[in-house]
């Protein structure tokens, strides 16, 4: 096996993954709360720098000779963990998508740590330890190239997130934490069975090997493995009708929890589809693509319509996440569906899905930050209690507006690029699907503008009159997120060049599997 590492074997990915754990263990020995916050922030900041350095290295290598044409895993590390006959390796590696998501993770983790500075006064040490462990799990998921290692990180994420919701959440937190835990665990366990089935089929769990061997599997095998994968990933995305844990979790989670949940954890499902389900079981994916597209359309419309009637600001944003993540799965599976009809090079859908993933991480992370800022001052999430906030908090209102406009999908922001590409893909696949999804443009403008009006304008509520404006941390974080979103929105080409090889590779694999596809009717017979 060729181990491709431009740093000559330097384990930069492992360092990034384990640094949060080391930082968390250091926190065990620190008494002073202020020092704990500082150490956690410094650890997260270093990790952000390292991930950006990795991104720069990656770009400088692969853009050296023009636009890259193929998906390349770099920074790889490999050693045998469980030797024969079990044959499991510790394999890490990152392609462009993984590195982009790593940067997103480190950025949002740092922001989460910073915005928790004042609101979290209860059990500070545990709080930062939990966030850091969560970060380690998330980073591990993005860079593992062995299914066994991947599954370990996948499950590791679960516990800190449940603790985060359950300890530091608001009133109904226990219910939300338990629901979150059980929902995601049930899906994951089915995936575990699928992983074992793949292992027994091929004698290896190395993802790069499985990506080569998997497409040759019998189609019934692929169908079942895909369904088991889908059980795990659809819960994480979340796709309708597996989404019900999300609003509860978001509403009860502390601000940092919501930012990480929306910004990174929701990407896990889509990442799983891109990295595992599509390349390893292309025939299974193609079989079920119509169903997945249908569920995505429902999620998009349903999420938007429920957002429209939410009295709770945080729940409103949570349901808008369901809608936006619907775009991600829509893009992925219309991409596959398209292929079936013979548009071999139509990568718009998948490109769009990846852009929506990144953009949703930036913008919805930002929106939850805005909601958190209100909650810290008002201690209420009900829109009815707000109103007229723009008067005491002009800077905040301005930044909130940027996040809101980005989420609506205003041209110039990353959201527009992603949703536009996704809809393009959808229209090319099936005009009915495309037409249905465009309705959501109107709906999302409606619920977001209306929310904005009720929160920031209208009659000034007496409770909000003396609120102080956004703190430097809040403003700074929002500016960073807004600038990144604008950057992607105005100059999408470099980003698309980075991810295009990945979508191209996916489509090549899927189109090779087309002769192997069952129709749904066959499957259910």
């Amino acid at each position, binding site marked *: 096996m060729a181990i491709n590492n431009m740093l000559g074997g330097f384990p930069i990915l492992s360092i990034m993954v384990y640094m949060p754990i080391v930082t968390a263990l250091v926190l065990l020995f620190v008494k002073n709360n202020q020092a704990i916050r500082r150490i956690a922030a410094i650890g997260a900041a270093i990790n952000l720098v390292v991930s950006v350095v990795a991104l720069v290295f990656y770009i400088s290598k692969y853009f050296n000779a023009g636009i890259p044409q193929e998906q390349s895993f770099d920074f790889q590390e490999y050693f045998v963990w*469980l*030797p024969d006959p*079990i044959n499991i390796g510790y394999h890490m590696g990152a392609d462009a998508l993984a590195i982009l998501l790593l940067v997103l993770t480190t950025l949002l983790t740092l922001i989460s740590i910073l915005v928790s500075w004042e609101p979290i006064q209860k*059990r500070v040490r*545990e709080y930062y330890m939990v966030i850091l462990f969560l970060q380690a799990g998330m980073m591990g998921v993005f860079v593992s190239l062995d299914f066994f290692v991947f*599954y*370990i990180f996948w*499950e*590791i994420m*679960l*516990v800190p997130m*449940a*603790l985060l919701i*359950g*300890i530091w959440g608001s009133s109904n*937190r*226990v219910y939300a*934490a*338990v629901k979150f*835990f*059980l929902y995601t*665990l*049930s899906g994951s*366990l*089915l995936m*575990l*069975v699928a992983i*074992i*089935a793949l*292992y*027994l089929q091929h004698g290896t769990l190395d993802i790069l090997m499985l990506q080569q061997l998997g497409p040759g599997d019998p189609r019934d095998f692929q169908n079942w493995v895909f369904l088991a994968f889908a059980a795990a990933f659809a819960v994480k995305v979340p796709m309708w009708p597996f989404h019900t844990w999300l609003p509860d979790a978001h509403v009860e989670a502390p601000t940092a929890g919501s930012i990480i949940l929306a910004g990174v954890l929701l990407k896990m499902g889509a990442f799983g589809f891109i990295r595992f389900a599509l390349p390893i079981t292309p025939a299974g994916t193609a079989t079920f693509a119509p169903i997945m597209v249908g569920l995505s359309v429902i999620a998009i419309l349903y999420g938007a319509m429920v957002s429209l009637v939410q009295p709770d600001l945080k729940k409103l944003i949570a349901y808008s996440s369901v809608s936006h993540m619907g775009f991600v799965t829509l893009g992925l599976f219309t991409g596959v569906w398209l292929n079936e009809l013979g548009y071999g090079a139509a990568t718009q859908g998948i490109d769009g899905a990846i852009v929506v993933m990144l953009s949703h991480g930036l913008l919805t992370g930002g929106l939850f930050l805005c909601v958190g800022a209100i909650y810290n001052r008002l201690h209420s999430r009900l829109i009815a209690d707000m109103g007229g906030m723009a008067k005491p908090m002009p800077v905040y209102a301005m930044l909130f507006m940027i996040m809101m406009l980005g989420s609506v999908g205003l041209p110039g922001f990353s959201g527009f690029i992603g949703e536009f590409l996704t809809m393009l893909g959808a229209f090319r696949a099936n005009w009915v699907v495309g037409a249905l999804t465009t309705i959501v443009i109107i709906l999302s403008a409606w619920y977001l503008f209306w929310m904005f009006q009720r929160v920031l304008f209208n009659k000034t509520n007496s409770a909000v009159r003396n609120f102080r404006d956004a703190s430097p941390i809040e403003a700074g974080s929002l500016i960073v997120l807004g600038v990144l979103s604008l950057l992607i929105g105005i100059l999408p080409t470099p980003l698309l060049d980075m991810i295009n090889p990945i979508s191209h590779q996916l489509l090549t694999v899927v189109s090779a599997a087309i002769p192997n596809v069952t129709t749904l009717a066959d499957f259910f017979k």
Partner: protein
Amino acid sequence: MTIDYSGINVNLEHILPELIVVVFSILVILIDLFTRGRQNKNNLLAGVSIVGYVLSFLACILYFGNNIGGSLFGGSTVFNTEAFNRMVVMDNMGLFFRMLSLGTAIVTVLLSTQYIKDRGFAIGEYYAVLGLATCGMMFTASATDLTSLFVGIELMSIAVYILTGFARADKLSNEAAMKYFLLGIFSTAILVYGMAWLYGMTGYTNLRQIGGKVAEIAAQGGGITANGGLVLAIMLLIAGLGFKIAAVPFHMWTPDAYQGAPTPVTAFLSVGPKAAGFAATVRIMVEALGPAWQTWVPIAIVICILTMTVGNVIAVTQRSVKRMLAYSSIAHTGYILIGLASYTPTTSEQAISSILFYLFSYLFMNMGAFGIVVWLQRNGGTDSLDSFRGLSQWAPGPAALMLLFMLSLTGIPPTIGFLGKYYVFVSALNSGLWWLAVIGALNSAIAAFYYLRVIWYMYFEDARVQRPQRSSPTLVWTLVGAAIAVLVFFVVSWPIIDVARLSLPTIAAVVGGGR
């Protein structure tokens, strides 16, 4: 008429590990007579017991090394043949279970020292009886004859009944011991009846000779099912063994016995006798009845599904953590039975080694969980879930340990419990029982709920009382050790897996042998 004694082989070296444990148990009673002062006595006797177990453990390691080609005894002495007229054997599987029993006993002693002192138990008798129970487990593991197997099981069981009722002043403990005793002898009677039928149908008491005979029967026209007596024997044996490993529908004694027994004894109960029960099960089902696997595997599958599901579903409703862990222990029997249910002659290596590995992983996580209950009881709590309320606030260390043990029992990485589940699921899929693996996976999700509830009581709820903590260094360090084992054996699991793969029973189909 000449009698050939050459095959009898009464070399005492073949039972050296058991002998060491027996000698030290007797030593404990003797020392008990000649020492004064409860504190001294407790420390001394616990120390003597542990020395005995460790020596025995070392002996097991040496024999194991010898069996796999080490040269300790000059490399030429062979111990893994049957000795004492084919009554016992020093094979690797027996050694694996012996080491497991000894490990359980060591941890139990460490968990017990404070407890029995606090509660005023009779110290000498406690350690001696514990040693005898361990000895019984070890004999069960090494037996290759129905009679020696039965003696081993009885030695273990009677000692364990006594341990269960050791809290003489405690009504619950008495009730538990009585129930356990009555149901236990009842099940033993069924077991022995099954053994009698097996002997009647095959004409042998030696397991491997029975295996040869069963293979002959299986090769005949109608196969096993044509031989009603043998089928009856299989049913009776499954029922009898099912009691010992607490499989549904033979699990009724478990919750009461576990709840009533002194907590360290419960910890012992949940691992030691279960492991010994599985040793007996593997010996009988694989060595003797291996050729009849097509008859008993379907029964094992049904029992396995019932055990997992009933155990998990009832555990959800429990308010006492000891009772909850009792039902969880039933559910874990179910997971281990996945390994047995996926037995076929071609997949036996994977099937049996997954059972062995699961039992190994179960030792640390389950004894750790009970250890936390022991700790809580020492610090003014009870075994009810309410005692765990807000534990993380007044005792962050023990709460973190309990969190780890609960995660391991749920099967969440990076803990050894995950690997145990992983291997039994691999075993099931390897035998084509993918739906059994799916049922196991769904059961793990149900189980997550009640393990998670302990976590949420510890972490999400606020403490009602802030209790001062009494120092109990032995207990705490034992629990830390168990927690480290839970993590370390996750990362370096391959030595254990290798050992488990080397510890397979002898498949007897080829051993014929007439008299």
